[in-house]
Structure formats: C-alpha cells, structure tokens
C-alpha cells in the first residue's frame, strides 16, 4: 500500500524538490506548545515532521536533545500524550506525514500491537526506534506493517553493505542516513564523506534517503539537499527552543521561524541549481 510518506516523496520528486524534515521533542518546552509548533513548522516549509518521544535514557542523543527530553519529562509527557498530540494535530492537518522518533522501551512497555493500533488510529505515519536494529525487530515490524505504518531505519557511516538488505526488506518510507559518527547535534559533518557514503548505500537501498545529524545551518543543508531526498534538522531547532524555553510561544516561533527559513531557502536554492 502507498503511504502518506510515499506520496509525499513522489510529489516532491515530480516537483524536483528535496524534503525538509524538522525534529522537535514532544512536550518541549511544555506539552501545550507542541501541536501549535508542529503547525508552525509546516507553515514555515516542513514537508514532514519528526516528533521525538521523550525517554529517560536517550543514549544516542547529544546534550541539546537530552535537555529537551528532560524538559518534556518534567511534565511527565508519556507515549500516550505524544499520540494525543498527533491526534489533535491531525484535526487541522491531514497532509503532512508525522514520524515518531524515540527509543524502544516506552513502545515495548505499551506492547507492539497496542502501540501500532493507537499510532495508526491517531494518524502517525512512521516510527523510527533508535535502539531497535532490524535484527531484533521481529514482531515489532510486523505489528507496524499490519497497520500500514512505515518503518524507518537508521543507516550510518559504519553500516556495512551486508546490512543494507535487511533495511530494504524490513524498512519502508525512507532511510535515515546518520551523517556522522556521533550523537545528535554533534560536530561538523564531513560533506565529502557524506557524498561518498550516500552514493555507496544508494546503490543497494530501495527507499529515499534522508540525511540528518549535524546539519546546523543553511550552508550545510544546501549541500545535503544535493545529496539526499530529505534533509533532517533537529538540534539546530531544539537549541533555539532551549534558549527561549521560558518565553511566550510567539517569541519561540519568531526565533524558530528565522532558522526554518534559512533551511528552507537553502534547500530550495539547491533544488533550483
């Protein structure tokens, strides 16, 4: 079956465009801000949204997203709360795909099938579980697939070709290429290395490739847009939320809006070139 994510990529491709996928942590800086921020990001040019599910032990995240998760968990934002946010978001937006990104334990605690049912019914499109490689995904992938939820896997610079087939078989929607060895929001990425690696994995992978980790400015986004089908930005936005976390939503949006425009125009420039 063709999913909302497939359709989005088909449409973007027809228009010669690269997707911009911003990430925010659900519940950051406070639970009642999230849905409005999601709509705002779409308004500012997001083609899809990545919504982080807070987990107490985010071992693949750098300090910026760790702190975002801590802010959300101060409000006890749970997986159920995140699904409720997506449900409310869908009341006004039935087009923009929403990808949940997080760690396995909250999902495992809920139960794979129960989670898949709930996620599908509120309008989630895909799930990316950082600490769930294809090898351990028995049961989980089937449960998601049964509800037509896309399964996004990470591929990294260290992923050997031999592991890519499993991503083709078990994954769907797109592949998230981790542009560097490190945690989210790490040091500068190496553009030449990303180009080489994306070319390598692109030979085997049968899905669009989104590039994320370490994309902090328009210039980098411009280069990544020339290499991948989607550009994923997280820590660069979340650090703006952090700097403005105790301010009115209006002020947070003002600051976020500037950064989103920087990314959007850089990507559009790359697409036009």
């Amino acid at each position, binding site marked *: 079956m063709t999913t909302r994510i497939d359709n989005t990529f088909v449409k973007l491709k027809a228009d010669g465009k690269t997707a911009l996928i911003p990430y925010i942590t659900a519940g950051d800086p406070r639970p009642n801000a999230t849905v409005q921020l999601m709509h705002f990001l779409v308004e500012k040019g997001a083609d899809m949204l990545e919504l982080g599910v*807070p*987990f*107490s*032990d*985010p*071992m*693949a*995240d*750098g*300090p910026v997203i*760790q702190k975002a998760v*801590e802010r959300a*968990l101060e409000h*006890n934002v*749970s*997986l*159920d709360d995140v699904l409720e946010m997506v449900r409310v978001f869908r009341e006004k937006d039935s087009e923009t795909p929403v990808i949940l990104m997080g*760690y*396995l*334990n*909250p*999902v*495992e*605690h*809920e139960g794979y099938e129960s989670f898949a049912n709930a996620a599908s019914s509120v309008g989630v499109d895909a799930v990316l579980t*950082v*600490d*769930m*490689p294809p*090898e*351990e995904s028995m049961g989980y992938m089937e449960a998601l697939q049964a509800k037509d939820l896309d399964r996004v*896997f*990470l*591929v*990294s*610079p*260290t*992923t*050997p070709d031999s*592991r890519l087939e499993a991503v083709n078989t078990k994954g769907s929607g797109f592949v998230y290429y*981790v542009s560097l*060895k*490190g*945690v989210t929001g*790490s040091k500068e990425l190496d553009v030449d290395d990303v180009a080489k690696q994306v070319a390598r994995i692109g030979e085997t992978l049968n899905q669009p490739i989104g590039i994320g980790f370490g994309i902090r400015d328009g210039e980098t986004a411009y280069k990544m847009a020339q290499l991948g089908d989607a550009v994923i930005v997280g820590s660069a936005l979340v650090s703006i939320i952090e700097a403005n976390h105790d301010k009115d939503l209006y002020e947070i949006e003002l600051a976020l809006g500037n950064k989103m425009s920087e990314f959007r125009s850089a990507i559009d420039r790359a697409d036009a070139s």
Partner: protein
Amino acid sequence: MTIDFSQFPDKNGHFGPYGGIFAPETLMAALEQLNQEYESVKNDAAFLEELAQDLRDYVGRPSPLYYAERWSKELGGAKIYLKREDLNHTGAHKVNNTIGQALLAKRLGKTRIIAETGAGQHGVASATVAARLGLECVVYMGADDVVRQAPNVARMKMLGAKVVAVESGSRTLKDALNEAMRDWVTNVDDTFYIIGTVAGPHPYPAMVRDFQTVIGREAREQILEKEGKLPDALIACVGGGSNAIGLFHKFLPDESVNIYGVEPAGHGLETGQHAAPLIKGTPGVLHGNRTYLMQDENGQIQGTHSISAGLDYPGVGPEHSWLKDVGRVNYVAIDDEEAMQGFRDLTRFEGIIPALESSHAIAYATKLAPTMTKDQTIIINLSGRGDKDMNTVAQIEGFEF
C-alpha cells in the same frame, strides 16, 4: 526439563527472551567485530594462556577461599566460606574482566579505552589495565558517585585516566553508561568500550560472564578440596550481576547447590527507593539488552537508591533475568541497614572490611546460615574490599577521619 546452561546465550545473544543487541546502528558493526574477535579467541589456547598468566602474575589469582570460622560459629549454623575477590589487585572482582577485555582491545588495535563505573572499582580496574598497556583511558561516572566514592576517583586519576563526572539524569551508574555509549558512538573507530558488568548489547553479557567465571571455577575446586563435597549454598550481591554470575555459572548444573542473588532493597522494597529490578521490576529494553528493569507505567526508567554505588542501577544482566524466570537462582533483597550490619559483622568478627556491595551478600548469610546445619557450607562471593566506602561509612557511623 534439564537446561544446558553452557548453551546460552544463542548466537544472537539471547537468554530466552532476554539479552540481544538493542544498539544504535553506528555501533552495530563494532559489536559484530567484537563478537567475531571474541568468538575466535575464546577457545584459542594462546589467548587463554596469556589470560591465565595475567590473572596469576598481575591479578594474584587464584584468590583464596577462606573459612570464616569465628563468624560461622557466632551465627551457629552452616560453615561460611568467603571467596576472596577483595584480595585481587585493585581490590575487587572487576579486574578479572578488564584484563580480558584489554587483551581484546590490544588485538583489535584500539588505542583508547572508555568505561563506565558506579562504585569506581570497574573504573579503577579499567584505568589500571590502560596504564599497563599505555592506552588512553576515559571513565564516565555519575556526579553523585564521584562524591561518595572519592578515594576511587583519586586512584583513577593517579593511574592517568580522565574521570568525567556525568551530570545528566539521576547522576549515577545508568547515566554514566549512557554517556559512555555516546562517547563510543562518536569515537567507535579507535575506541574500545570495556563494559564492567554482564549487561549491554551482545556479546558483552556472555563475554564478561566468561571472564568472571574464573571465580566459580576456582571456588568449585577449592571447596571440593577443603570439604570433599559441593557447597549447599552460594550467595552473591547483584547490581549488574557480574560477580554473581562469575561465582554461580560453574555451579548452575549442580542441582543440589542452592543459589542466592542479593539485590539492594535500599530504604526498603515497599518504599520504591531501592535497586531491585529482579524482585520488583518488569522486563524492558535498556542499554542494549532486554532485561528486568525498574520502570514506571510509561516505560520511563526510574531513579534507584542503594547505599552502595555499585548496586545502584535500574537494570540487571539479562542472564539473571532468565535465571530468575527458569527458577534456577533465588533472588532476594537486603536493605541499606542490613547491609551496614553485615559490613560491621564481617569487620569485627573476621577482621575483613567488605565493600558495601558485598556487604549485601554478607547480610543475607546472617539470615540463611542459622537455618542450616553445621555440616552444611555456604560460599559467599566477597566481591570487593571496603576501603573505598570509608566516606559513606564514616558518615553513617558518625566519626571523622
């Protein structure tokens, strides 16, 4: 049904439903490389000889099996033997594992070692082997633990290691593990992560267990020599569970041996302020493996409490979860006060100052031994010495030094 315990984990690291490899993609290739290297050396005569030589000449093995006669008579029941891991170089069982992993690091050509530590014993043992091999060493330690285990922090620094105080989360062992994982993801090319317990993604739980089984292998020979028969009971404290699995594993097929793993009950199991996932927790996924965890109704990992930093962890090695489910090991709990009493008892009756971790096992023996007869025997794993705990103990006992 008889279980062949030597056949676990399976090739993907599963102990029944537990264990496995729940790691970020960036680490998968490194874990596979480690797994292949470990598989290729674990039955290799030259590697095992090198390991045995290090354990003998550097660590000081075999460690004695000591009959605690005065204390046994005081308790008036079974004869209690102490497996003296506290007499190892660096003062705990942790070095058995770091010696082994350091040999692997060398074979893999890694120039940098990282480790997480709670009580600091694993940190010291890692810094020690790093110094010996001339490798860079970074140890992650929860900021709270840096304070309560200050003597070990000083030792690590003296050995040339960099100690990073982890301020995130609950500022204890689990957060140190998160931070070490983040370091490893970033520096995976040149860095070897020496995990200190039988947890983490495969192959760590199996590999660390194998390096620690020297404890039980020696203890089994020693008790047969001294008593002419197997022990009736084994007792060890369980945080991540490496000293416990080290003692237990070679005895698992011996059905006559009752095995007790002692979790820390902290302020009391009913208070929620403890670190006893096997008794009070539910299965989940954390730090690369599926195991019993202390978690809330939303699957968030809960804060823990134990008087002993080395047991202050919300998870446990996956093999223990499985041994609980199949019923081979009895998991029991000892609270902070009972552990302190165990600490005092061993110190006063035997002149041996135990680590607060090991004091949990001591305290359980004071309950179990009197229910047994004088011709029965217990082996306690005295996993570490208590020098590192002087700050904590002085505070509780109200003296200054």
